[in-house]
């Protein structure tokens, strides 16, 4: 962090490390002073280091990250690092003593061990030698026991004594040596104690020093940090002040501007005000003059009015008198009138009572009549029901009778025809063809043949149209049968389609939604059904009427509209798809129909459909009476029935009857002849019988005996008839 300083610290530290073991514990007192000096140097060098450091590498290193940070932060960081270092060094300094004592202790222990070992060795050797000596002495005792000569014994005892003394002396020497050692150890202990107290003193000193130092440096650093903060604050303050002043100046300038503006405005307003005041004053004067004049005029008028008032008063007084007189008159009239009113009231009351009576009477009457009516209606309904029932029964009976008669007639007819056929084939030898009449196939009364409803027709038409797509030629004959008005199914269909497309408004919206999922044909059918029910078209005839009406309308209006509509219809988008199909069909079918329906239905403009419909409905309404068609139908039916029955009678035509008559006469003649012949034949027969009888007799005679007896037998004379 602080290279020179830290290096210095390091050097100093290393000095210590070197010095402590070299100098030894005795010169320990020298060390702290050096250390203190070094520390002072280092502390002195610190601000320099910091000064050098600020622009130095520290900034460079953290430039990118630190640039935005403030000076105070830098100072704090710096101080932190420095203080950490200081604390570290201080603790090291203090613990150095402990380490030194540790190493001394270790050295002491090593030495102690060495000395102990030596002492033990010495003791052991001593024990060995003394044991030897002791053994020797004890051996000598044994020897001495064997000695008998006192001289020898004494000598020996002497030597023993000497030996023992030597032994004891050795031991004593050893003991004294050990005691000496103990004493030196005691001295050593005292020294050690002293040294330890010295060490502790030193430790305390250092700690105190350290505490002081740390306190000082902490304070210093705090001061530095504070200063840094102060400087920063100052800078901030000045910059803010500058900003503030600028803002203030700007503000005051603006204020001044506003003030001048305001003064100007005030002046202007004052001028205006003065002008206004003068003007108003003049105005006021003129108005005042005028009003005064008005007052004068009004006073004059007032005088005049007063005069007229007096005049009027007199007039009114006169009027009043007149009116009073009139009033009297009117009171007389009023009384008269009142009397009259009373009378009229009386009569009114009478009339009212009468009226009430009548009301009740009529109500009763009404009730009875309504009950009558109801009863009659019931009866009528019952009657109708009975009539209907009878009609049905009659119909049934009629039908049954019809059928019976028809069966009978048919039987007869078939017999006649059979006869005819037999006559033709057997008698005349002519080929016979069965006559083909419309009534032959008829079954049941003609009047009761089911009349098709419009919808059925529609269905058929639509079905046909579909079938026609597949088999055109086959259905053609039938389609003509169904459409006696000689309108092709195709045109009908097209017209109907057009109608369906154009008059959707007649259909209920609910139905439309229901129709959506259905097939196209069914859809058309239902829609048309709805349309027809709305239009009031019920039967086949109505439908054909409608179609005819369309065509006729087209013919009437074609000269005017055809030219207009044709290009339009060609452009119709809805029919565009149909156009191609129609064109093809018209190519195929168009030739035979061309004479009948020159104006093609597709030229009916869709816009005209509504007009046509309207006209049709108007036209249709006129003949629509509720019961007319029923009667008409009956009459028509009767004629048809009679026709039918008449036709039945003429099943064998007159020519054939004539033929039959001629044949009859011829045959009668033939019969006569035949009868004659028959008679003759009978005669012939009887003759033959006679003949045979005669022959038999002859034979008999011939066979008789007599013949043989005869000379000339008769058999030889004549030829005998053989069978």
């Amino acid at each position, binding site marked *: 962090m602080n290279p020179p300083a830290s290096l210095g610290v390091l050097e100093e530290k290393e000095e210590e490390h070197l010095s402590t073991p070299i100098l030894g514990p005795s010169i320990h007192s020298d060390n702290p002073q050096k250390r203190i000096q070094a520390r002072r140097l280092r502390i002195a060098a610190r601000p320099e280091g910091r000064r050098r450091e600020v622009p130095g590498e520290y900034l460079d290193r953290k430039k990118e990250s630190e640039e935005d940070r403030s000076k105070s932060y830098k100072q704090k960081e710096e101080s932190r690092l420095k203080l950490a270092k200081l604390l570290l060094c201080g603790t090291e300094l203090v613990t150095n003593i402990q*380490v030194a004592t540790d*190493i001394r202790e270790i050295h002491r222990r090593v030495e102690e061990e060495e000395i102990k070992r030596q002492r033990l060795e010495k003791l052991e050797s001593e024990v060995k030698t003394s044991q030897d000596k002791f053994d020797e002495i004890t051996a000598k005792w044994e020897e001495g026991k064997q000695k008998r000569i006192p001289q020898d014994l004494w000598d020996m005892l002497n030597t023993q004594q000497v030996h023992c003394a030597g032994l004891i002396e050795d031991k004593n020497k050893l003991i004294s040596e050990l005691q000496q050692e103990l004493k030196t150890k005691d001295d050593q202990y005292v020294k050690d104690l002293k040294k330890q107290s010295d060490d502790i003193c030193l430790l305390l000193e250092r700690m105190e020093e350290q505490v002081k130092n740390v306190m000082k440096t902490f304070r210093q650093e705090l001061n530095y940090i504070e200063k840094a903060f102060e400087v920063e604050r100052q800078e901030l303050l000045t910059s803010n002040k500058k900003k503030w002043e600028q803002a203030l100046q700007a503000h005051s300038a603006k204020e001044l501007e506003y003030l001048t503006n305001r003064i100007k405005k005030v002046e202007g307003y004052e001028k205006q005000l003065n002008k206004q005041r003068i003007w108003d004053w003049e105005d006021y004067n003129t108005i005042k003059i005028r009003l005064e004049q008005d007052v004068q005029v009004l006073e004059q008028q007032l005088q005049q009015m007063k005069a007229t008032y007096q005049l009027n008063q007199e007039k009114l007084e006169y009027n009043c008198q007149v009116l009073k007189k009139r009033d009297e008159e009117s009171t007389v009239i009023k009384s008269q009138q009142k009397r009259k009113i009373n009378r009229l009231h009386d009569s009114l009351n009478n009339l009212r009572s009468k009226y009430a009576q009548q009301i009740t009477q009529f109500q009763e009457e009404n009730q009875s009549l309504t009950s009558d009516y109801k009863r009659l209606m019931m009866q009528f309904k019952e009657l109708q029901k009975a009539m209907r029932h009878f009609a049905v029964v009659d119909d049934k009976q009629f039908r049954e009778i019809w059928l019976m008669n028809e069966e009978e007639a048919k039987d007869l007819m078939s017999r006649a025809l059979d006869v005819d056929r037999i006559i033709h084939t057997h008698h005349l030898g002519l080929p016979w063809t069965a006559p083909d009449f419309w009534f032959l196939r008829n079954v049941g009364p003609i009047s009761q043949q089911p009349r098709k409803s419009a919808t059925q027709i529609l269905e058929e038409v639509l079905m046909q149209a579909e079938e026609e797509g597949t088999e055109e030629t086959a259905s053609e004959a039938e389609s003509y049968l169904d459409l006696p008005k000689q309108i092709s199914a195709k045109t009908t269909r097209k017209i109907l389609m057009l109608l369906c497309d154009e008059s959707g408004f007649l259909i209920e919206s609910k139905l439309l939604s229901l129709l959506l999922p259905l097939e196209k044909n069914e859809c058309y059918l239902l829609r048309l059904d709805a349309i027809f029910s709305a239009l009031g078209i019920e039967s086949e005839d109505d439908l054909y009427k409608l179609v005819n009406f369309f065509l006729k309308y087209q013919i009437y209006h074609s000269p005017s509209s055809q030219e207009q509509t044709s290009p339009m219809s060609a452009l119709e988008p809805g029919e565009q798809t149909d156009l191609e199909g129609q064109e093809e069909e018209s190519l195929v079918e168009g030739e035979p129909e061309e004479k009948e329906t020159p104006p093609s239905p597709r030229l009916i403009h869709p816009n005209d459909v509504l007009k046509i419909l309207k006209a049709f409905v108007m036209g249709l309404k006129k003949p629509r009476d509720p019961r007319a068609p029923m009667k008409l139908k009956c009459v028509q039916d009767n004629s048809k029935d009679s026709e039918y029955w008449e036709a039945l009678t003429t099943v064998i035509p007159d020519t054939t009857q004539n033929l039959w008559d001629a044949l009859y006469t011829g045959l009668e003649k033939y019969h006569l002849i035949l009868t004659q012949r028959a008679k003759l034949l009978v005669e012939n027969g009887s003759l033959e019988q006679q003949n045979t009888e005669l022959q038999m007799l002859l034979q008999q005679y011939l066979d008789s005996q007599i013949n043989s007896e005869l000379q000339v037998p008769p058999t030889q004379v004549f030829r005998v008839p053989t069978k």
Partner: protein
Amino acid sequence: MQETLATSTLSVPSRSSVSTQDKFSTAGQTLSTGPRPPRHSIVPPPSKSKGWNSRTKFHQMRRTITEDTEWSLAIVPLLTELCIQHIVKNFQNNPLLKQLLPQHQQKVLNLLSPDLPLAVTANLIDDENYWRRCCTQRWPVCHVAKHGGSWKRLFFERHLENLIKHFIPGTTDPAVILDLLPLCRNYVRRLHVDQFLPPVQLPPPHGELSDSGSDVELEEPTTDHYQLGDLVAGLSHLEELDLVYGVKDCGMNFEWNLFLFTYRDCHSLAATIKACHTLKIFRLTRSKVDDDKARILIRSLLDHPALEELDLSHNLIGDRGARAAAKLLSHSHLRVLDLANNQVRAPGAQSLAHALAHNTNLTSLNLRLNCIEDEGGQALAHALQTNKCLTTLHLGGNELSEPTATLLSQVLTVNTTLTSINLSCNHIGLDGGKQLLEGMSDNKTLLEFDLRLSDVAQESEYLIGQALCANREAAHQRALNPSHFMSPVMAKGPENPAG
């Protein structure tokens, strides 16, 4: 009350704004109420505070003034204050505190004398200020931080320690201590006793004999110290036990048997600590604990539910004791083990290393001033290669040399939990220093590495110091902003060799 206190303690500079305000207000009142003596003289408060007396005197002096338009009731002492004074006066006989309102309680506590008997105050008063006054009155120096910041706890702990220190078995009545137990059982968490007095013997015959130090065996059965069992069993919150079986300030009466930790002491202590399940820290230093006693103690500590720190420094523990400690490591939640200044040698260190290799609790191991030598050092280094928990290791003064240094340098490259290693006072040598430097260059977590007086080259020591400095800075950055702690390390990398 507050007012009076303020006036009475005007000279105390510690009271800053409140007291000065009070001062002003009272001064104003005295000025304004000066010329109104007659009513005021009726209520001379019977309290012992001087402020009131002086003021009443003042009023009595100005009694001649008859008219006072500015007289107000505010100066008359309130009935509550009078009551409070009475309560304070009779607190010993009738302790009323909990029934009072909080502000009144405060006033009472401020006025109570610290000399009140503990039987009254111990379980009644929780106020720190009162106990602070008690402490400062009794002891000139009080480190309240050492007692968890609680003055009450400090008071009771030191009081109890004092009693134990001066307990003489046989002569002192054990009830002296046991009577205190119900009063202090809830407040004592730490017991630091650095003196156990032996029973009193006849001094004259021993005074001469004891100098020779030869009669130890005669005295032994009689030198048992105070048995802690009953006391510790009563202290329900005891967490720390710091004992020194010795005598302080014996001066010229020195006898070896003053410093004797007997087997009976040992057994009773073992039973005591075994029974104390709340104990977290156990220290037994400078007590001549040898292998056998250490084994007895440690056996009782096996599977202890709470013990976290064991300090047996400055004893006579050898390899067997170390082996027992190693066993303890694997049978407890021990975090700190201190065996400094013992007689552990290579086999003991090897057994410790064996236990350490798979231990996950121990964070600090101190083997200072032992003699584990290279064999033990290598074993420990091997263990550290697998250990992931230890952060502090002190191997100062252990006769270590280069082989251990080479292994330790390998450990430095691998291990990421160690933050502090002390190898001072060893014979590492120049090559060993270089190898440690190599190992250090790959390490980013070590913050302290003491290599003083271990024959390492200055250059390598300096470079290791630089690396440590970088690591410290990185750790600081990491602590400041843990999200991107790699960047400062990278930024510092190139700077270190340049510096």
